[in-house]
Structure formats: structure tokens, C-alpha cells
């Protein structure tokens, strides 16, 4: 392979502590392809769509909660989705870099001695996901969701879970733990044919105005399109490290969330500020995906079965779009215009998501899927209600999977307003919800089941809110 002519300064990657030239890294080459190509074959391709986690590696990323004590956080991502070019200037650790057979890393040791590997093919990915959790700042207990994006076909998971739970804290002087106390690698401007990391927002917007240019952040959707369906956009414009898109703020009237923050970053930075979103996060794909996928990307891709849109619809969210002409604010209810279409113009980006305050007090997110972790909704419903003296005084319901776009269940909302919060009182709203949208038959669920689940969701909310009360 010839030297990449476009590789300028910064076209180096630190892999397991040693600098490597980032050669041959233009799309569609993924971080996984590139790592395996230079001999790090520990990471495997199991599915090429971010579902199995066999490709997981660790990246040194800015701390997810914006902490200054530990400004760097080891973040596990699916290397099969990350464009190789996005590694420019970054630090990567693979299973090979964590330990050796003679000097196993604590995570590796616990997995090995407890029978946590059988065929071993998924194991390096589990090791990396588990190591990210091992190094998570402030970890008290092991969060099982850290492993929600890794599939094992052999063990049945029990020994893997036990290995995770046996982990102590990193030893004093652990080099990867020490690394978290110094600043993360920056994301310098860099370009290769087909991929560019612009220097700032203005350059990004200018590039996105060109035909065939597509914004990319975590690549958790575009990467799947590339790997499984051969999508080859003319130019990928990396927007995930644009500081203008990575801020959060809370004031009396509104919570603002930067669109280029990953779901994990949003979760950690909001720290429970929006309970409805806290219900969504653990059900949103997997930790590996949430570490890459951004809130703006989940909205921008416009999928009718995305998990965030129903919740953000129920929260009456607005989007701030930024383009060459400046910013404009669009209610989420008018953002989607059709299947994977929106009012966003070419050359525009979602800059921020605004959630107005005060929040509704009774909220819930009902996701219907086959599997509890890391599955795609057949139908999803998000509720944001206020009750006063047993009567519904505010109602917003967002739905996914029932139409070409995420929608508000306006008829059911109208039927709820002023209704008693009792089985009899909500009956008209239940009927309205059961006939909302036009659910389809597919491999995830039948149309009849989808409609039935819509009909069940309000009685379920009533029953479950009674239990919590």
C-alpha cells in the first residue's frame, strides 16, 4: 500500500502506547480493518454493525461528564463502525495492549480463571468493554450495562458477570488509570480522500454545503450503511469534536444539550436532570453504541424507530439548527417531514436540543422489543403527564414505530386532558392511542401486536404509577 498522499501532520495514532503511522486509512477502511491490517488481530469482526462488540477497543476520550479531575476517560467503542481516519491523533488500546499471557490485566485475569472465555472470539471485545468500566471514574459497583453491547454465544454470560463483579479498583500506578488524569488527545484537523475533520464549525458548514457531503459523528448509523449496504458517501465531515456542538447548559427555563455529545456524555452530564431520558438511556442500543452515537445524530438520521425522538417529542423539545445563514429554532414536532426526511437543509447541522422546563412530573418510556438489552423498538411510547387532584392537566405522548416518522399522539393527548387518572377516566384516551398511526407488519412485530401495545401502554402506565405511588 502506498503512502497516503493526503496524510499530513497528526496522521499518527498511538496504539497500545506506541506511535503508528495512519497509512491506508481512507473510507471505507474502518478502525477495525486498519488495526487488524497492522497486526492487531485481537479485535474481531462479528457483525460489522455494532451489535456484537467483538471489535470493541478503548479510546482515550474527553471525560464523559466533563470532569476536570480526570479529563480523560477510556471509552469503549465498536471499531467496526469508526472510520479509520477518525483515529488521527488518537490513543487506542486493544486487548493486546492491556496485558500479556504472562502478565494479565486484572480484567483479563478474572475472565480467564473463571471460565469467561470458551471459543475466545468475543473475548477481546468483552475485555475492552469491561476495562472501560474498570477505569470509569467514581465507579462503585460494576454496571452490567457496560457489557450490553457484547454478545457471547458460548458461555451463557454467568462467568463473565462474575468476573466483572470480582474486579477491584485499579492498582496505584496503573498506567491506564494514570492516563485519565492528564488531558485527552485533541482532535486535530485532518483529511484523507473521502473524510475530513474540519478545524471549526464554519469550515464544517462550508464543507457540508458541497454536494455529496455528509456529517458524521459516532458513525453508528453511517458505519452500518457502509458496512452492510455498501454506502460510499463522497465526503464524510466529522463533526463529533466541534466544541460549538458539545456544550450543555441548564437555566430556569430550558435545558440545552449539544448535538455532538454522545448519548453516554448526555447521560453523565445531565446526571438525572431529566428522568424521562434516564429511562431511555439504558434501553438505547448498548453502552458501546451510546459511547459513539450522538443525540444530534439520532435525530438527524430521522429513523421512525429511533428511541430518543419519542421521548424528546414528549418533552416538547426544540432543535436549534445552524447553517451558513446562522441559527434557527424548530420545534421537534415539525422537524420530521417523512421517512428519514426532515426540515434540515443541506449544509445545516443540528447544533443543540432545547428541553423546556418545568418538566412534567409523571413520565415513562415504554419500549417494545424482543430483547431487553440492545434491541430496536417495534413500537415505543413516551409519556409526560402532569396530574392535579387525580386529573390529567398536561399530556404529551411521543410515539415511534407507528408511522413514517416519530409522531405525537395528539388525539390521545386531547382525550387525556381533564380526564380522571383512573381506568374509566383514561378509557377514551386508550381507544385513541390504540388506533394511533399506521403500524406495519414486519420481522420485528405484527401490525396487530404493535397496535395492541399502543392500546396497553396507558393502562400499563396507570398501573405502574399506582405501584410507585
Amino acid at each position, binding site marked *: 500500500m502506498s503512502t497516503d498522499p493526503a496524510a499530513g501532520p497528526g496522521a499518527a495514532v498511538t496504539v497500545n502506547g506506541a506511535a503508528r503511522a495512519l497509512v491506508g486509512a481512507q473510507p471505507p477502511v474502518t478502525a477495525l480493518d486498519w488495526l487488524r491490517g497492522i497486526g492487531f488481530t485481537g479485535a474481531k469482526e462479528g457483525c460489522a454493525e455494532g451489535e456484537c462488540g467483538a471489535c470493541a477497543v478503548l479510546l482515550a476520550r474527553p471525560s464523559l461528564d466533563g470532569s476536570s479531575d480526570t479529563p480523560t476517560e477510556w471509552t469503549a467503542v465498536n471499531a467496526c463502525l469508526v472510520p479509520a481516519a477518525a483515529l488521527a491523533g488518537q490513543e487506542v488500546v486493544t486487548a493486546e495492549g492491556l496485558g500479556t499471557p504472562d502478565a494479565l490485566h486484572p480484567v483479563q485475569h478474572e475472565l480467564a480463571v473463571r471460565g469467561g472465555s470458551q471459543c475466545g472470539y468475543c473475548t477481546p471485545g468483552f475485555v475492552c468493554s469491561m476495562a472501560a468500566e474498570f477505569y470509569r471514574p467514581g465507579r462503585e459497583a460494576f454496571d452490567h450495562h457496560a457489557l450490553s453491547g457484547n454478545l457471547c454465544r458460548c458461555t451463557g454470560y454467568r462467568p463473565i*458477570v462474575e468476573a466483572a463483579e470480582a474486579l477491584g479498583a485499579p492498582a496505584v500506578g496503573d498506567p491506564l488509570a494514570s492516563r485519565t488524569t492528564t488531558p485527552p488527545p485533541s482532535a486535530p484537523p485532518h483529511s484523507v480522500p473521502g473524510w475530513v475533520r474540519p478545524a471549526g464549525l464554519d469550515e464544517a458548514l462550508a464543507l457540508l454545503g458541497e454536494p455529496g457531503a455528509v456529517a458524521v459523528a459516532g458513525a453508528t448509523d453511517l458505519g452500518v450503511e457502509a*458496512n452492510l449496504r455498501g454506502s460510499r458517501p463522497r465526503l464524510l465531515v466529522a463533526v463529533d469534536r466541534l466544541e460549538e456542538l458539545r456544550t450543555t447548559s441548564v437555566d430556569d427555563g430550558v435545558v440545552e444539550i449539544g448535538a455532538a455529545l454522545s448519548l453516554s456524555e448526555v447521560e453523565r452530564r445531565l446526571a438525572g436532570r431529566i428522568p424521562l431520558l434516564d429511562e431511555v438511556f439504558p434501553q438505547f442500543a448498548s453502552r458501546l453504541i451510546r459511547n459513539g452515537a450522538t443525540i444530534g445524530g439520532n435525530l438527524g438520521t430521522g429513523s421512525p424507530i429511533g428511541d430518543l425522538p419519542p421521548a424528546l417529542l414528549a418533552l416538547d423539545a426544540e432543535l436549534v439548527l445552524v447553517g451558513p445563514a446562522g441559527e434557527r429554532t424548530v420545534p421537534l414536532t415539525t422537524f420530521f417531514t417523512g421517512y428519514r426526511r426532515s426540515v434540515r437543509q443541506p449544509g445545516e447541522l443540528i447544533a443543540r436540543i432545547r428541553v423546556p422546563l418545568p418538566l412534567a412530573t409523571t413520565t415513562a418510556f415504554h419500549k417494545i422489543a424482543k430483547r431487553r438489552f440492545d434491541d430496536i423498538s417495534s413500537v415505543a411510547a413516551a409519556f409526560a403527564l402532569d396530574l392535579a387532584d387525580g386529573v390529567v392537566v398536561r399530556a404529551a405522548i411521543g410515539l415511534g414505530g407507528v408511522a413514517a416518522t416519530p409522531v405525537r399522539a395528539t388525539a390521545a393527548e386531547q382525550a387525556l386532558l381533564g380526564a380522571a387518572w383512573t381506568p374509566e377516566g383514561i378509557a377514551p384516551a386508550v381507544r385513541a392511542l390504540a388506533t394511533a398511526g399506521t403500524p406495519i407488519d414486519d420481522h420485528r412485530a405484527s401490525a396487530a401486536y404493535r397496535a395492541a401495545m399502543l392500546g396497553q401502554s396507558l393502562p400499563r402506565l396507570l398501573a405502574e404509577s399506582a405501584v410507585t405511588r
Partner: protein
Amino acid sequence: MSVGEARPHEAAALHVTGRALYTDDLALRAPGVLHAHPVQAPHAHARITRLDPLPAYAIPGVVRVLTAADVPGANDSGTKHDEPLFPDEVMFHGQSVAWVLGETLEAARLGAAAVDVGYEPLPSLVTIADAVDADSFQGARPTMVRGDVEAGFAASARVFEGVTSFAGQEHFYLETHASFAQVDDDGQVNVSSSTQHPTETQEIVAHVLGLASHQVTVQCVRMGGGFGGKEMQPHGYAAVAALGATLTGRPVRVRLTRQQDMTMSGKRHGFHATWKVGFDDDGRLQALEATLTSDGGWSLDLSEPVLSRALCHVDNAYWIPHVRVAGRIARTHTTSQTAFRGFGGPQGMLVIEDVLGRCAPVLGLAPEELRRRNFYVEGQATPYGQPVRHPERLDRAWQQVLDTGEYAVRRKEIERHNAGDPHRKRGLAITPVKFGISFNFTSFNQAGALVHVYKDGSVLINHGGTEMGQGLHTKMLQVAATALGLPIERVRLAPTRTDKVPNTSATAASSGADLNGAAVKDACAQILARIVPVRARLGTDAPWEDVVRAAYLDRIQLWAAGFYRTEGLSWDATTMTGTPFKYFAYGVAAAEVEVDGFTGAYEVRRVDIVHDVGDSLSPLVDLGQIEGGFVQGVGWLTLEDLRWDDSEGPHRGRLATQSASTYKLPSLSELPADLRVALLERATEDGVVYGSKAVGEPPLMLAFSVREALRDAVGAFGTPGTSVELASPATPEAVWWAIESVRR
């Protein structure tokens, strides 16, 4: 003593550090390796009217297009001569009709898209029902008969009839099919393949290339999972790699993407069964008549022995005096279904467990009582005439699960919970497993091993079995160390190769440790016998190294080829009678679930398992097989959803769930909240290596307990005595419809 010691997998340290190499990792280390990509047909059934490779050569980086015209030997990738490697008639959606080799995978992919193929679509059969309507069957149509079912039904107090149909299962080994071929200076074709059956891969490669077996060497370093999916299916991919390497003189790698693997390779057979069953007044089975129809897919592959094993397991653990069970294999335009952990056994057993689960409420018996009442007792034989040895082991395991699982106490707790919660119901069930060990086909029950003792006293072993994660190599190291009386560190194991141990059987039928372990032990025993005089001379305390050194100087052969064949087996496939199994493996599981009445979603709260592995060769490995098999079975029965497009639309015959995002296998969230596994004690199996028992397949069927617990929980939404029908897989949607049907 190494045998019986709980040891981690022999390659665990390599697994966790990412240093364990798999077939495609080897391929990526070969300079100049070419990448292969298939041309997949977009029709379930079509005649190929044109196949022009020329446009592919316009793609930069395309090196060679492989078509039928390139095959020097037989254009056939199977052992039944019904699987052309390059077909002229497309038999399933996604079948490869040509392969493109490129300097990069991207070039090969674009080249494959550019190959110009003309298709004339033909009518297709996608479901078992389609095939039955069209009378489309393949292979043998065996019937297993004992006694007189008509007399049995006449003597029955209650007779029920029903239909049970259930889906197949994708293997979803994390490592997709992979092969890597190189040709050496003398024309020797060396193939690394992710294969459970190196000998058969060798034979197919040889016959495709028109070579003798000794011109082809197949190696399997290790597999990233097999589960039966790499018993017969790897051969064609190995042949493509070998053909490409032969034609180009360069190394060639074939590694399927997940979608290619799912759309091209065979799966567990789905079945359709009609049945009629009779019970006496006490709920004792009197007669069973059934017709089992499996979906074999487009070619025969292993469908006949899978069907035989299904028929041989329709009794599971139950004495049924009068039996007539017929089997047939539907020929459909889908992938060619193949071996999958249990090999038809789970499908046969699912039928009788479904029958008992559905009939128990109507008979007015608790399902656990109905099951227990029908267990085999000493002196009884299976419908095919094999005496059931050690049935008391099943009784012991059953009682142990009831006792340690506090079954009766929890039954009461569940009743209390269910009475108080209208929306969430719990269910509890206990089910048995009896599974026959040995290949049904007697000849396959043989194995070889090669044990080298070097002059320094170190030992290298080879055997004919392959490592797919099941811990076979770990067990073989333990067997060799124990047989030779050495610390296990003195023994190493080399990858499985056909030039080390020839004429091997597939690592399958759970038999890997039984057969190869006995062969390894035989080789060790030969060496020990030869050095007896040296030991006598040097004294019993002489260090092993001194003995070996002295033996070498005495010109004593310090290596040996071991061999084993299982004695006492017989099988007549025409009458479906004989003693096909060396022994039965037993197990019992109890599962408790909670089901949400709003959605049908559920969770497994607790599972108790007692399983019979004889005297365990390697308890940590065996525990892993039990738990892993159980969870895989739960996946088959509750979650994993193969959906073929059976519409008349343009995608007819296409697998709709062909990727990890649409075909969901168990994740961490499916691990039971409380999982307790015990090995049955006092379980020595005479005549098997160190008293052990096979463990690979039987635990999968412990998962019936979860399906039956779901049935129990669904029943709690209705009135007592209602028979609950539950689809398989019992997805949340399927459970919800079952609840709806009993709520009415």
C-alpha cells in the same frame, strides 16, 4: 492428578489478550493474500441464463472470477452430490453462483456486483407447508414403530390430537465461516479452515480440485464457535479458497460477512409435527403416533441423520408402550439446514414436551407430576429397542432439583404472588433431559491420536478432534497428563491437522472427548508399556526425564498413534432399531419466570440445574458447557426468530432476519437472575474415558424448563385447567398472544 481438576480453558490467556489466532487472523498475516467475495443470487429459485464475468475485470483490483468452468474436479461441495459449488440453477435466495478474488475486499465486492448474471425465476417453495402441498421431499422417510398404537389408543382413557410447529435456529458462532488456502512448491494444497470436520473438508477440497487426499492438508487452529454449523458447511468455502489459490498461485482468504453467513449457510431444522397421544386414567402414556416433518432446505446435507436423531428422542425420558413415529424431510428453497447442537434431538424432545405441557391441565395433573409419572424405569427400553441404562440417575437429579430448588415452597409463593397481582404472573416448571451419546451411524464412532514424547521428556499431543470453545483440548491435555502421570505443564497440544491424524470423524455428537480422549489415552498407554523395562531398571522413583532419556538410548519408540472405537453399538436405519448409543446423558432443570400481562415481556428469575456428566474430566469446562448450552437453548425457544419472506413479492425466499440487528440472540439481559448448576454426584460412567460423560449437546435441552415455565405463567392469566398453546420461539409477542387467548 489432572483429570477432574477444575482448570481454565487451555487457551484462556491467549483469548483474553487477543493473541489467540483464528483462521482469518492467519490469512491477514500472509503477504499478497487475495480476498474473496461471493456473487449471491437474488431469487429463491431460478435458472441461470447467463453468467458473464468480464465486467468484473473492469474493476481495478479484481484478479480472478471463479465460475463452474474453472473447476478441474467435481463441481460439488457436499457428500451427497446434490450441492454444486457453482450452480446453474439457483436453489435459494442468496446462493453463491460465482466468486470474485480481489487485491482488496472492496475490489472483490465491487467485482462481484459487476458480474453479469441473468436469471429466469422459477416457482419456489419457502415453507414446510409449501413443500408438503407440492409433495416436495428428499431423502429417506423412516418410521419408528413399537407395539400397536391402535391398540394403545383403544386402551387409553384420554386421547388428544394436536399440531406442534417450531422454528429453526441460526448458529451465530461469533466467527463466521473462514478458510485460507495456499499452495506450496510441490503442489500440496494447504487449507486452514474453521471446520469441525477437517477430514471431510480435505476430501471435498480434493474432489473439487481433482486431487487425491494426500495432496490436500487441512488444518483447524481453533474455531470461534461451531455448534454444528461447521460440521458440513465449511467445505464449499474451503474449496473456493483452494481453487482460487490453485488458479492464481497466491494465498486466498474466504471470510463471510455476517449477512453472507446467515443467508448462505444452513441452520437448525425447523419442524412441523402432527400428533395423537393416549393416556390412561392415571396420566400414564399409552400410545403416541406422530409425523415429524423437518425443513431440510435445498439439499440433503445432514438432514437424514438429524431426522433419525429426532425420531430417537421423541420419547425423551418417558416410557411410551406403543409408538409409531414417521419422519420426512421437506425440500424447500432455503439454506440447506444442517447440524446444530442436539442434531434433531431437541426437535424430537420438544414435540413430547409440548404434548405433555398442553395435556397436563386437561388431565387435571400438575405438569411436573405428569412428567414424573411417565419416567423410564430400569428394565424398559426405548422405542428403537435400546435398554435405558441408569434411569435412576434421572430420578436422583429430579429429586435433587426439587429439593435444593425448594420447588414446593416456591410453587406456593408463586400462587400467592399471582393471586395478588393481576398484571404480572409468575410460572414455574421442571423438565428432564435424556440424550443418547454416540453417532447414530456406527462407523463414525472411532478416533485417532498421536502422542510424541521428546528426548527431554516434554510431550506433544495431536488428536483428531477440533477445538471450537468446548474445551476439548483442555480435556485432552488433562487426559494425557493423567495417563502419563505428568504435570500438565509438560504436555502441549498442536493444532488439528489431517496430516497428523487421518480419517477423523467430525467433532460432533458431543463425542469429542469420549472418542479422542480414549485415543489419546491409548497412545499414552502404549508408550508407558514400552518403557516398563526402563522404569524397572531405574527404579520407580526415577525422574520421568531420566526414564525417557534412557528409553531413547535403548532405542525404544517414544511416540505412538492411539486409536479407539466404541464397542457394542448397532443401528439399522431401515428398521430404525438397534443400540445406537453408548449411554444416555441425563439432566434436570427447573425454571421460574415472570410475565408482564401488558406486553408479554418476561424475565427468567431463577434456574436450578442438576446435570449428569459422569465423573467430570474438567469441571469448569463442563459447567461452561451446561450453562452455555442452556442459554443457547433458551435463545432458540424464546428469542431467536428466523423469518423468511414467504410473500409473493420480489423478495420471496429472502431471510428477513439476516443480521445481528434483526436476529437477536441472548445477551447479558437473558442470563437468569439466579442460576444454580450442580453436577450429578456418584455418576461414574463405566467404559468411558476416566468415567466421564459427554456434555456438549445435552444441556441445550434443559431450556425446555423455561418454555414450560412461560406456559405455566401464561396459564395463570386464564382459568385453571386451560390448555395453553405457545408458539416457538416464545417471543414477547408470542407470549402476549398466548395470554390473550387464555384471557378470553
